[in-house]
Every structure is written in structure tokens, then in C-alpha cells.
């Protein structure tokens, strides 16, 4: 069996790498500005850097998820993608929409709603692009006789992610209602359906890397995504505590978001247990590192650090401070960036035929980036906690507090440099693998 159409995935991953690199550049611009060095203000003011940093994150992760789907779905459904040409059209249009949006941000063309800054005109193109992607994936599944739980969960996640983009496009006169539905997109993406995508990719990787029976892995996959939705849907309430809606959300959001770490804990335990149970030890050690790493770091970043400020009585003071940035960085890194890097690490040697399974560069990439990100999280955390006490409790003026916390951003920049070194090493490893070949895919399969 050979699925040459899986090659498409490589180019989505390459796009991911490129945009990820650019995202980090804008992160540095913001880090330096926070530390008091905003020399680029005239060309790239903070709000531009912020919009670019956030949207590049979303686009490179989506590109990674799409690449993962193009790689996983043919293998799971045991048939080629229905159209490789359209997949390339989709790739190019995704890149064009992404680049157009980013350029627009530099010319004050945006919607100015956090995470959803892409202007309305481009929103429609995003919808068309995602519909094309879903069409290719779902038609491939539909035409196949083999529909595995892994592929269904992954596709369901992608489908719901597309549907949930729509509430973000509804126009409202009230800032409160606007914000309310903005969270339908952002929260239900990252603490809901994106976890289906993550779960689907994780399940695929564990099946391949550990050799544990598919039925066992997929059974637990259901339990985990079940826990995710059970806690995550009503957990949306933690965004509604203090934006001008009823107090009922303090109770509902408080209870259900306190349960959210359970889903991540289950995911971490699941991944580690499957690894221990597995008799097959796949030679691709790096893929295993990233896979287990994603499950564990997401528990710490999304689960524990999310819990740290999710209770209403804590959030009253931490809401709108750098504490959120602390949680956000490790959560996105652990849950989504690392799972994308895991599927890339697994699939790259299979697509290119270069079995760089356990290179020193690859290992250094893993440790440097993770230690760097943990350092960044601590720096954000210290700055955030200081901000909460000084500004919110001691009632000291915002900018005075910002001056006092500048030093933490110097620490952040140092840690970010280590993180970036790791990411650059990952990219070098990516480049060293070369491009995919049909022969490699034939041998692999």
C-alpha cells in the first residue's frame, strides 16, 4: 500500500515552520517593548506586533493541523486523498490569506478583536479555504470503507473548529455581547474542539509509536475527549465572570473550569501509560519525546496553570493581567505547538526517507525549546503576580507597575533566546530531512 498523497502534508508543515519562525520574531518585538525598548514603535507598534504574534500562532497551528490531517487520513482510511491538486490549491490560498492578513495589520487593516483580528473580507476567504480543506478530508473518509475512531475524532475536531469560526463573524453593537461570542470561538476552540484534534493526532501517534492495541487507545481517546467537553463547554464561563453578564457564570464557570485540568491529567496519564504498556519500541525517539512531552506539558500549562487563576475569587484580581500571558504561553506550547511538532517529527522521516530518528540536534531542539518556554512562563508568572499585587491590591498606577516589572521581561528575553535556539535547531533538523519522495513513502508503507 502506498499513499503518495500524504506528501501534501510536508508542504503544510513547511508553511507552519516558516510562520512559526516569524511569530517568534514578533514575540521578541513585544518582549523588548515591555522591557522598555520600543525602538520599532513607528513601524511596528505594539498592537501590530500583538495581532501578528497571535494570528501567526493560529495560522501556523491550523496549517500544522491540516498537514496532520492530510498525513493521517489517507493512512487511517487506507486510500489516497480525493484530490491532491485541490489540497495544493488550499495550501497556497491559506498561505496567501495568512500573509495578506499579516501585511494588513501593518497598515491598520484589522477587526481589533483579540485573536480574531483578521478583517471581515478575509474572514470569508478563510471560510472558503476551510470548506475546501474539509471537503477533501471528509470526502476521502466518506469514500473509504475504513473509518477509525482516530480519524473520526480528528475530522470531527476540524469540522467543529470550522463551524465555531462563524459566531465570531456575527456583528454586535454591544461590546459585552461581542466579547461573549468571541469566546465561543476562542475558548471553544482551544479548550474544546482543538483538543479533539490534539486527541486524534495523539491517538494516531501512540498507535504508531507504542504498538498498543488500537481498540484500547481509541477507547481512552473517547473518555478523554468526553472529559474535555464535559468540563470545557461550560468552562467557557470563566471568561464570563467579569465582562458584564449574570453572576450565574461565576458558579457554573468556577465549577466546570476547575474540572478542566482533569481532561489534561487524563491525557497525560493516558499517553505515559500507553508508552509503558507498549511492547513495540519505535526507533523514532524524537517523535516519542514530542508526543509524551505534549501530553505532559499541556497538563502543566493548560491544566495546572489554567487552574491557578480560573477560580472566580482569584480571577477577580488576575483578570486582564500578565498572569493570563503566563498560562497562555505554556498552554499553547504544550497542547498545540508540541503536538504539531510531534506529528512532524513522526511523519518527516517517513515522507523523506531520511531516518534521522535520534539526532543530537533533534534532542537539543526538544530540551532547549522546552526549558526556554518554562523559563518564559516563570518570567511572565513573576511579572503577572507582581502586577496583581502592586496594581490590583496596592492600587499603584499601571505604568509605575509596568516600570517595576521591566526587569522580568529581560529575564523573559533571555529565556526566549534559549527557546528560539531550540526552535531554530528543530528547523535545521526539518531542513536536513530534505523533501518528500514517492519512493520513501512506498518503502515506509
Amino acid at each position, binding site marked *: 500500500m502506498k499513499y503518495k498523497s500524504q506528501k501534501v502534508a510536508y508542504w503544510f508543515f513547511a508553511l507552519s515552520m516558516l510562520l512559526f519562525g516569524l511569530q517568534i520574531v514578533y514575540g521578541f518585538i513585544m518582549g523588548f*517593548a515591555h522591557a522598555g525598548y520600543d525602538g520599532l514603535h513607528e513601524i511596528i507598534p505594539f498592537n501590530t506586533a500583538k495581532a501578528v504574534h497571535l494570528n501567526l500562532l493560529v495560522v501556523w497551528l491550523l496549517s500544522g493541523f491540516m498537514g496532520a490531517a492530510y498525513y493521517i487520513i489517507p493512512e487511517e482510511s487506507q486510500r489516497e486523498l480525493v484530490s491532491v491538486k485541490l489540497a495544493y490549491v488550499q495550501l497556497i490560498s491559506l498561505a496567501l490569506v495568512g500573509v495578506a492578513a499579516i501585511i494588513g495589520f501593518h497598515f491598520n487593516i484589522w477587526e481589533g478583536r483579540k485573536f480574531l483580528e483578521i478583517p471581515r473580507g478575509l474572514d470569508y476567504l478563510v471560510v472558503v479555504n476551510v470548506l475546501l480543506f474539509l471537503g477533501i478530508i471528509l470526502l476521502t473518509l466518506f469514500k473509504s470503507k475504513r473509518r477509525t475512531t482516530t480519524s473520526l475524532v480528528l475530522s470531527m475536531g476540524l469540522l467543529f473548529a470550522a463551524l465555531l469560526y462563524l459566531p465570531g463573524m456575527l456583528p454586535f453593537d454591544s461590546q459585552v455581547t461581542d466579547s461573549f461570542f468571541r469566546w465561543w470561538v476562542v475558548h471553544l476552540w482551544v479548550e474544546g474542539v482543538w483538543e479533539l484534534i490534539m486527541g486524534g493526532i495523539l491517538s494516531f501517534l501512540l498507535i504508531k509509536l507504542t504498538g498498543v492495541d488500537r481498540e484500547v487507545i481509541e477507547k481512552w481517546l473517547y473518555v478523554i475527549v468526553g472529559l474535555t467537553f464535559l468540563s470545557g463547554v461550560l468552562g467557557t464561563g470563566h471568561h464570563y465572570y467579569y465582562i*458584564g453578564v449574570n453572576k450565574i457564570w461565576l458558579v457554573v464557570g468556577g465549577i466546570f473550569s476547575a474540572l478542566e485540568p482533569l481532561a489534561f491529567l487524563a491525557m497525560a496519564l493516558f499517553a505515559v501509560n500507553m508508552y509503558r504498556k507498549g511492547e513495540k519500541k519505535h526507533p523514532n525517539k524524537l517523535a516519542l519525546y514530542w508526543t509524551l512531552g505534549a501530553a505532559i506539558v499541556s497538563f502543566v500549562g493548560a491544566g495546572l496553570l489554567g487552574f491557578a487563576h480560573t477560580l472566580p475569587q482569584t480571577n477577580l484580581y488576575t483578570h*486582564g493581567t500578565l498572569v493570563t500571558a503566563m498560562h497562555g504561553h505554556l498552554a499553547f506550547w504544550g497542547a498545540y505547538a508540541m503536538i504539531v511538532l510531534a506529528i512532524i517529527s513522526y511523519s518527516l522521516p517517513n515522507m523523506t526517507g531520511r531516518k534521522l530518528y535520534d539526532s543530537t540536534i533533534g534532542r537539543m531542539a526538544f530540551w532547549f525549546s522546552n526549558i526556554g518556554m518554562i523559563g518564559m512562563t516563570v518570567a511572565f508568572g513573576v511579572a503577572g503576580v507582581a502586577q496583581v499585587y502592586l496594581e490590583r491590591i496596592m492600587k499603584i498606577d499601571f505604568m509605575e507597575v509596568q516600570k517595576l516589572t521591566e526587569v522580568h521581561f529581560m529575564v523573559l528575553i533571555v529565556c526566549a533566546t534559549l527557546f528560539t535556539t531550540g526552535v531554530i535547531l528543530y528547523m535545521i533538523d526539518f531542513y536536513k530531512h530534505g523533501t518528500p519522495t514517492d519512493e520513501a513513502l512506498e518503502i515506509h508503507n
Partner: protein
Amino acid sequence: MLSKKQARAFFLGGTLVTFLIFIGLTIFSLSKDVDQTNHENITPAVVRGKEIWETNNCMGCHTILGEGGYYAPELTKVIDRLNLKYNGQGEQVIKSILMSEGPWQPNGRKMVAYGMTEAEASDVVAFFKWIGEIDLNGFGDVVGVDRKISPLAKDKNNK
């Protein structure tokens, strides 16, 4: 031991139930009876102000209702705060910031000079006024006016 079928039922059932509750709570909390936003006070000026807020991505630096960029001050109670700081001239100060043509550097951190017209700046102020009156379940007090201005900041302001 849990079977795969049971696990699937747990996933689908749990998702359906929580989603239905979520929809129900959404309808409840957006209903007029429990409105905390003084929705009737959303005038065309407030709507225009919100549009200016969005088209300039103010949220990219500032926060409002606790949401935004964490780089510049929270603006939920900005009028009250500046009234206290500038002897009741809060609205005027905001307008002059927004209408400034030259580089603006409040407290050492640069802000984009938007050079807005008087009408545009008034719309943004109307937006802030409406925002400032929303019942935020206690958050309004946390970011509200009873802030201490340190002697150091007062010195700077008086210069």
C-alpha cells in the same frame, strides 16, 4: 471494565448535555431581564465609538472589561480615573490624547498618534462612558477609581 461503546456514549452524551445547558445559559444571560449592561444606553455614538475602538485595534495594547493586550492601561473605568487625576477633566484629556497629531508618550510608553477628529474622539468617549457603567460583578471596583496615586506619579503629573 469500560467498553469502547460505553466510552463513546459517555463522550457523545456528555457533550450533548453540557452543550444544551450552555445554550440555555447563553439565552438566559443575554435576556433583557438580567441585563447588566444598560443596553438601552447604547446610542449611535457608543456604536461608532466601538467601531473606532475596533478599527484601530485599541485592544492590541489596552484592556477593556479585562480583555486585551496588557501593554497599556485598563480602560473600563478610564473616565473616572482620569477625572480623579486631572480634576474632573477626564473626558477632555482622553479627547486630546486621541486627537493628538504628534507622537504621544504617556508615562514613558509610546502610543500611536491617531489624530482623530473632535467627533471621533467624542464617540470614543461615549463608548468609554457606557462601558464604565456596566455592572461587572465586582471587577469594576478592582480597576476602579479608589486607586492610590503614588507621590512619585503625582510629581510627574504636576510638571
